[in-house]
């Protein structure tokens, strides 16, 4: 049994953390929050230079051919830094969709550009309030032309290509669309988290190419989301951990009634609860990473487990970090808000806690029946 990261992976973590401390301090996040920018283009360029976007792409397609254990290390650090970049959309979703369902020609066309970061990808599923299902999708592809509306599409303004879930007749499939074409309209929609651009994207007979010759069904979409859920969960755990550290640091330095507020049980037990949540979520994320990396049959169960516990841990840590700071934590000036915004954005981006709880129990019941 070896349930830890390797020395090389830990070294990667240190490098990643050091890099982000230098290039993505909270002041940088703030500058994106306060500007009209949809992401930090300069940081994105540097991240791509570091090769993070190329991590799991096989060498034959211009990637580094590393494992998902390296990718989750990077995900956690991006989560800690609340990095304002389209990494999740491009790497966890668009790249993964191509890897899972692209044909050879599609992989050759796009993976090397996704690896270098010169192309940014995203994924579009949702069209309306509530959970998207195979039944309620209305975007359709007819004779290679996509029509319909997707909302919200994360990082759509930054993206060059999007993988779209749409129907051809009654068959659900994944389609690849270049966003810079006449039939595509992107309208900004503001979310809670101004550091990440989102849009409503309308397609009016836009050129669209089926992934995998149309063989990508609803099951492929679910597996794509399962894989992304593990990577999202690591980002969430990273954020939850950073929120705990911020809360702890403040509580140690802030005095009330002549002693640090960190010496009061109300605060101590709050921080202990954050630690407990974060530890459980992190341990579940280890399972998720191992399942993702090994292509294990337990992936759905592991993914849903780490997704649910990371979502809960981040929400608790983000809100109680503000609470620990008291009035100052509620000001614009303080950085507590970044975690609070990002926690909620990540928690709904690929389906809510409620949705993943349900998916988890389905997987548990199936595994016990088998």
């Amino acid at each position: 049994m070896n349930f830890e990261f390797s020395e090389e992976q830990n070294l990667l973590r240190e490098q990643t953390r050091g890099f982000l401390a230098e290039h993505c301090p909270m002041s940088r996040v703030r500058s994106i929050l306060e500007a009209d920018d949809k992401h930090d283009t300069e940081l994105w360029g540097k991240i791509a230079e570091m090769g993070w976007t190329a991590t799991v792409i096989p060498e034959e397609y211009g990637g580094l051919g590393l494992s998902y254990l390296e990718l989750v290390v990077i995900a956690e650090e991006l989560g800690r830094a609340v990095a304002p970049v389209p990494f999740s959309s491009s790497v966890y979703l668009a790249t993964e969709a191509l890897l899972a369902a692209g044909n050879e020609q599609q992989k050759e066309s796009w993976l090397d550009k996704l690896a270098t970061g010169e192309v940014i990808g995203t994924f579009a599923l949702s069209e309306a309030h509530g959970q998207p299902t195979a039944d309620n999708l209305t975007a359709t592809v007819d004779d290679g032309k996509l029509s319909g509306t997707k909302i919200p599409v994360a990082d759509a303004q930054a993206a060059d290509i999007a993988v779209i879930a749409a129907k051809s007749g009654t068959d659900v499939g994944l389609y690849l669309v270049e966003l810079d074409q006449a039939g595509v309209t992107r309208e900004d929609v503001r979310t809670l988290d101004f550091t990440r651009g989102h849009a409503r994207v309308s397609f009016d007979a836009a050129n669209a190419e089926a992934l995998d010759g149309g063989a990508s069904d609803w099951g492929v979409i679910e597996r794509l989301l399962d894989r992304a859920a593990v990577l999202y969960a690591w980002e969430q755990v990273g954020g939850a951990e950073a929120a705990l550290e911020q809360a702890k640091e403040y509580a140690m330095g802030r005095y009330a009634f002549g002693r640090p507020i960190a010496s009061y049980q109300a605060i101590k037990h709050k921080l202990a609860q954050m630690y407990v949540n974060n530890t459980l979520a992190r341990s579940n994320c280890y399972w998720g990473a191992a399942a993702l990396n090994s292509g294990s049959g337990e992936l759905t169960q592991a993914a849903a487990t780490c997704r649910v516990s990371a979502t809960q841990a981040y929400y608790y840590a983000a809100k109680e970090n503000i609470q620990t700071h008291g009035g100052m934590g509620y000001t614009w000036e303080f950085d507590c808000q970044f975690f609070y915004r990002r926690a909620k954005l990540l928690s709904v981006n690929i389906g809510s806690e409620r949705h993943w709880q349900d998916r988890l129990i389905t997987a548990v019941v199936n595994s016990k029946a088998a």
Partner: protein
Amino acid sequence: MDFNDSPAEAAFRDEARTWLEANVPTSEELEGLDYIEQAKLWQKRKYDAGWACIRWPKEYGGRGASAIEQVIFNQEENKFDDLPGGVFLIGQGMAAPTLMTWGKEEHMLRYLPKLASGEEIWCQLFSEPAGGSDLAALRTKAEKDGDEWVINGQKIWTSGAHYSDYGILVVRTDPNVPKHKGLSYFFLDMKSPGVEIKPIKQLSGDANFNEVYFTDVRIPDSQRLGEVGQGWQVAITTLMNERASVGGGGGGFGFDEILALARQVNVGDAPAIEDSAVRAKLADWYCKRSGLKYTGYRSMTALSRGEIPGPENSIGKLVGAPMMQDMASFGMDLLEMTGAIWDEAFAPLTGMIQAAYMGSPGMRIAGGTDEIMANIIAERVLGLPQEPRADKGMPFSDVPTGAG
């Protein structure tokens, strides 16, 4: 036990309702006025007809009414949506009772009628950046100079500082005695030289509060309430009158809204309201809201019997604020991937859910954090002992602050 008015209460309610129906300002009357002007128009109209601050004695601008009559009038007034008036809460609700308890007759005759008429607006200058829950640890200092005091320091979380005429202020007049004993209480003209006001932007993007800086601001000694060194006792009077009128704002998001959302959005193929996990959460929130509502009824009954509702009222905020946060968070979950969208055009209820998510952290802090509220219940309602105070009996200047 019944929900009905006594005959006298019913008669009073009729009278109030009749007057309100005839006098509530129309939208035409309010058009073109800013919020402060609107509030002043309505307050002056109430004052002129004897419907302002009705519990106050008539000589101070009130009506000499009973507590339950005040409740009835408020209930009737609240049936009209969006009447302006929140800007008077601090002056009428907190400064006025303090003046009545600690002020001289001349203060009361000078200031109370103009508070009742809405002609003058007051704000509260208590909190400081380093104080937080430890309110008495304030550092803004006042030094005597002849018949005047010279104030230097900084206050924070002052609602309405920029449109207020007067402020109530607690300052440190002696740092060499234990912290509660070195304070004095004043009121001051907010237009005094040396007062500088800066809005505080909250994480919700709103700016409901201010920082107020004092640089050699001079206050006549005649504007002191209570003795020198007695400021904490005077402040207690003010704080006892603090209603849980908390800023930060959740924009009216409550049970009815999350219920409406659950009827509107699907879980799977059916409306969310049919999903039993959703129902279980809604049931718990309904029970809390209902419990708070009927706790309020019990308080009103106590008021009507001449009893004074006690610190048990702090449960309202302690229960309500985290509940709003969780309802908002869950509301976004029901929307699934669109949940984080905070655009009036796209979000249901014009973004009210997202606004509540962003506003509720402030509600859990302003007017006493959840933790302080729990302490109040434990100590003042249940009578449990205070925690040991590290600063007890220590000269304020020696109390550890963590700074430096």
